[in-house]
Structures are given as C-alpha cells and as structure tokens.
C-alpha cells in the first residue's frame, strides 16, 4: 500500500470517528468539540484532492469561525447541559436499518457509476487560478456573495439586538 493511501485512511478515520462522536455523545459540549476533528480532517481530504486553497479556507472558516460560533451557541443557551433531550437512544434499531440501507444504496450506486474523472491530480498552488476565475468567469457569484454577506450581517445584528435590549 502506498504511503498516501495510509495517510488518507488515517484522516478518513479521524473524520468518521469524530462525526460518530458528534452524533453519539450524550454531552453537547463533547459533541461540539468533536466537530474539530471532522472539520480538520475534511481539510486534510481537500489537500488530497489538490485543493490547497479550499483546505486553508476550511481551517480558517470552519475551525476558526464556525466551531467557535457553535461553542458560543452552546454556552449562550441557558442550562443547555442540564437538558438530556439530545441523542436519546430511542429508535436506534430502525435508525440503523434505514441508515444501513441508505449506505448500501449509495455505496452500490457510487461504485457502479462512471464518474467524470479529472485527468490527473496536480499538486500545485491553486489560489492564483481561483483568483482569476473569481474575477472573470465567476464574477457574478463573487459579487452576489457580498450582498449575501451584507444581508447576513444585518440579520445577525437585528436578531441579536432584539435579545439584548431591555
């Protein structure tokens, strides 16, 4: 087995094990922290795909931003750790059956589908190429993103301020 394959499976193990922790942990704080492994592992997978810029963004935004946001959300919620409604074990068996069937279906389909594969994976810096694309053929989504950000910002301010007043 090649070294790259071994590393890939190690990272995949990290992602899947952390995701399982998120889903099965009975403490929501543990769930939130386990997301760290998932997010960081996904960044590793991006590196495997030759997407260095996306991997960096994944670390910056997900690990640096969204994870913090989730932890804040957990801490902001009053007495959230006292409530044990998350992850009740009711319905484990039917859940497992459904998930198993879904997994089997996706697995069968994915392995039998002829995918449009890239010629070969080139491990080269992509940010310059992404910059060119953003400002040329993908200009419209790029500018639209700024308006989405603006709307999200206004929404965040309005919704948070209505809680703060009074």
């Amino acid at each position: 087995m090649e070294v790259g394959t071994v590393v890939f499976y190690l990272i995949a193990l990290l992602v899947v094990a952390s995701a399982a922790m998120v889903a099965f942990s009975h403490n929501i704080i543990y769930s939130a922290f386990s997301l760290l492994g998932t997010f960081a592992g996904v960044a590793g997978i991006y590196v495997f795909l030759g997407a260095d810029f996306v991997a960096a963004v994944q670390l910056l935004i997900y690990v640096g931003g969204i994870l913090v946001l989730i932890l804040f959300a957990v801490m902001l919620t009053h007495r959230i750790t006292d409530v044990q409604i998350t992850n009740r074990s009711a319905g484990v068996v039917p859940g497992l059956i459904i998930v198993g069937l879904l997994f089997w279906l996706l697995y069968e389909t994915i392995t039998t589908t002829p995918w449009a594969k890239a010629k070969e994976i080139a491990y080269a810096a992509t940010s310059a190429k992404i910059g060119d694309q953003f400002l040329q053929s993908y200009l419209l989504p790029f500018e639209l993103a700024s308006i989405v950000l603006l709307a999200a910002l206004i929404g965040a301010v309005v919704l948070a301020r209505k809680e703060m007043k009074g």
Partner: protein
Amino acid sequence: MDLDNLASLEYFYPEIILAGAILLVIVLDLVIKNKRVIGALSILGCLASLGATLQLYSGPSGFLFHRMMVLDHFSLFFKIVALAATILVLWMSFSSREVASLHQGEYATILLSSALGMFFMASATNLLMAYLSLEMVSITSYILTGFLPRNRRSSEAALKYLIYGGVASGAMIYGMSWIFGMTGSLDYSQIHAALFQGQPNQLALFIAFVLILAGFGYKIVFVPFHMWSPDVYQGAPTPFTAFLSVASNAAGVAILLRFFFPGVSQLGPDGSWRFLSGVEWPQFLLIVSMVTMTLGNLSALGQQNLKRMLAYSGIAHAGYILMGLVVLNTEGLQAMLFYIVVYLIMNLGAFLVVVLVANATGKEEIDGYRGLAWRGSAVPAIAMAIFLFSLTGLPPLAGFVGKFFLFAAVIKQQFYLLALVAVANSVISLYYYARVVKVMFLDFPEASDGRVELNPGAATLLGLLSVMTLVFGIYWGPLVAFTSQSLQFFTK
C-alpha cells in the same frame, strides 16, 4: 448571445437597480429619522427595477456573465412576479401594525435582498449560481421569520425554518455534487450535453435528482418537505408570510423548471418534453402532487388560526401547481405560470385581510372574524370572501380559470386519476374556506370584538387585488397571452 462581464451590464439593469436600492436603504436608515421615507424609497426602487425588467422583455435573449445566468422571457416573467410580490407586500406592510413596531430599514433591506435572490433563482444556469441564489433567499427568509422582537413563536419558527432549510439545502448540494461528478460541469447546457450523449447510470441520476428536488421542493413546499411551513407561516410577521407564500413558492417553481426542463429534458417538436429516458419522473411527480394537495387540504380542515390555515392551503396549492409539471408539456407549464400569477393576487389579498383584522383585534384565530361584515366597513369581509372563493376555484373568479387550465392540461394527457383527486380536493377545500365566510357573514359580532378600520392605502390595495381577482376570472385573455409568451427558454 453569450456575453462576458462588461457586455452583460447592459442587460443587467434590473438587478443593478435593486442592489442599489438595497444599499441606499440601509445607508439612509442610518441617517434618516423618518421611517416612511425608507418604505417609499424601497417601493420606488422596486418600481424602477420593474420598469427596467419590462424594457428587457422586448429585447434579445442570451447568456450573461460567462453563462452564469440567462436572460429570457422565462426568467423575466419570474422577476416580474418577484417584484410585483415585493411591491404589494411593502404596500401591505404600511398598513400593518405588527410591522410598524419593527426596524423599518432592516425589514425593507432584507425583503429587497430576498427579491434579488429570487431574480437569480429564476435566471441561474449554473449549479453554483442556483445554490447561491437559493441560499440567499433562504437566509433572508430565516431572518425575516424571526424578526418579531420578544415573540417566542416567531423565534421558534425561525429556528425550525433554519433547521429544515439547512437539511434540505445540504441534501440539494450533495445531489448537485453527484451531477457534477457525472458530467464534470456546473453549467446547465454542458450538463445537458453530457447527460444526453453519454450513458449515465440511471440509478445515480435518480438519486441525484431526488436530492436536488429536496432543496427545490422545500421552497415550493410540497410533501414531504412541507413540515416547516405551518409553524413558519404562523410565527412570521404577516406581510412577510404573504411574501413567503407567493414569491418564495414562485421562485422555487422557477428554479425547478429551469433545471428540470431546459436543463435535463429535451423539447420535442409537438411541445412535449422528453425527460432523460429511464427515469420515471412523471409517475413520481404524479404521486407527489396528489399526496401534497390531499395532505394540505385535509390538514387545513381543523385549523383555527387563519395564518396556519392559509399555510396548509398553500401546501395544497403547491400540489395543484405541480399538476402542470406531471404532463411534461408546454401546455402544462403554461398553466403553471398562469396559476402562479393568479395565486399571487388572491393569496396576497387574503393575507391583507388577515393583517387588517389583526390590526383591529390582535387576533389571527377564526373567532376574530366573527361577524366581520357587520363591524365597521364591510369591504374587508366581502374582499375576503372573493379571495377565499377564488382560492377554492369557484367561477367566475380568477382561481377558477387557473384551475381550469391545469385540469385541462392534465385531462388532455389522460391523467384521469390525478384530475379526479384534484376535483375531490377542491370540494374538500370549499369546506374550510366557506367556514371562514360563514363566520364573517352569518355570525353576529360580540361587543368585545374591535371594529375593523380601513386606511386609504390598505383600501386601495384591497380594492386593486379584488378587482384583479374578478377581472381575470372573466377576461383572462391578456394574462394567457403574457404567460404563453413567457414560456420561452434560451438554451443555445
């Protein structure tokens, strides 16, 4: 036409004007104290954008911004629908006591951003644009749903909406990744070419389509992606509920049609569309349509809250609109567009009356409508009766004509079972719509019920909407001509 970034700007005025209005409103909100100006300015921005859109309608069609979006009659039609809904809802918001207590500048900005997102939903020809525009509409919708301060129901509704929306868009983007994996492209026409030339795996294609349909379906509100709608409709500020019920629904239909018709089907010479062979799409949609309308109507029967009842009625109407999709031909699509316009008029009207009654009594439950005809002006009660009977589909109202076209398209293609189920559903819906009418006219008001006041703005809007409901029920020719002209996709 296939234009690059600079050349596209010439055909991009509606969006530029709307984006400019968004920025202007939010900046002016910081400096101006008079909040009426903000509302007026937003309407003015929408009107200017509408003017630019109408001007483009007679112009050429083509791809803009390196094939990110397309300019054709179909996209312009849905832009006009989105703008009309936005203008009417802003107008409605002037009379709403509920909205008067909110941050006006933010409310208008986010509403306009939502309309801008719908513009791109109607015209996206790239999966990335489709996803981004859908997210834009979703994010703005979550914000406006939770806009009511210190209102548990509003916050709860926003949270539910966010969670359902997150799951649906996650499923959708996963499906899109499958399409990208099979075709190697995000561009609709390249996807079309790759799927029709190659031998795609049928099962993989079906899974991808169902996943994508989850994202679109949650905007159109059909079963099983409807669960969020009753709570959200009830919790959101009423004018925004009205916006959500008509504009968001229409934008969902637009993005769905754009992807499934020019995207992955081929138009035959006789006006029938041929879907990718091997995928049993019409059968699937047939069942979805029947289940959606039946479930919506049956759930509406027991509702006491008018907004909640209209939410379930909205689900039922999504089912009716889907009927036009099942037949996979131009006639069906045309009936869908016609119904969207009609539904916009009558549903906005019904919500306007809900706003007026809530202003007077603070109630949205059906007992707030007790003897409405005898409390102050009788106009709201009469108008409400018109809208509700039109929603049922009784002649000579616009709703009847809309349903007639849908039924005709279905029966011509010999989907008798679907037509039968739809007729049965219309009968069921008569029960709960007529119950409101009965309460308004035959019950006597009690001393504690507030009088319903009409201000000139609301009265004009109410009159306009009811007259349109009546006129399109008798003289539908121009609207039919407009919708049939609008069913033009640019694909080359």
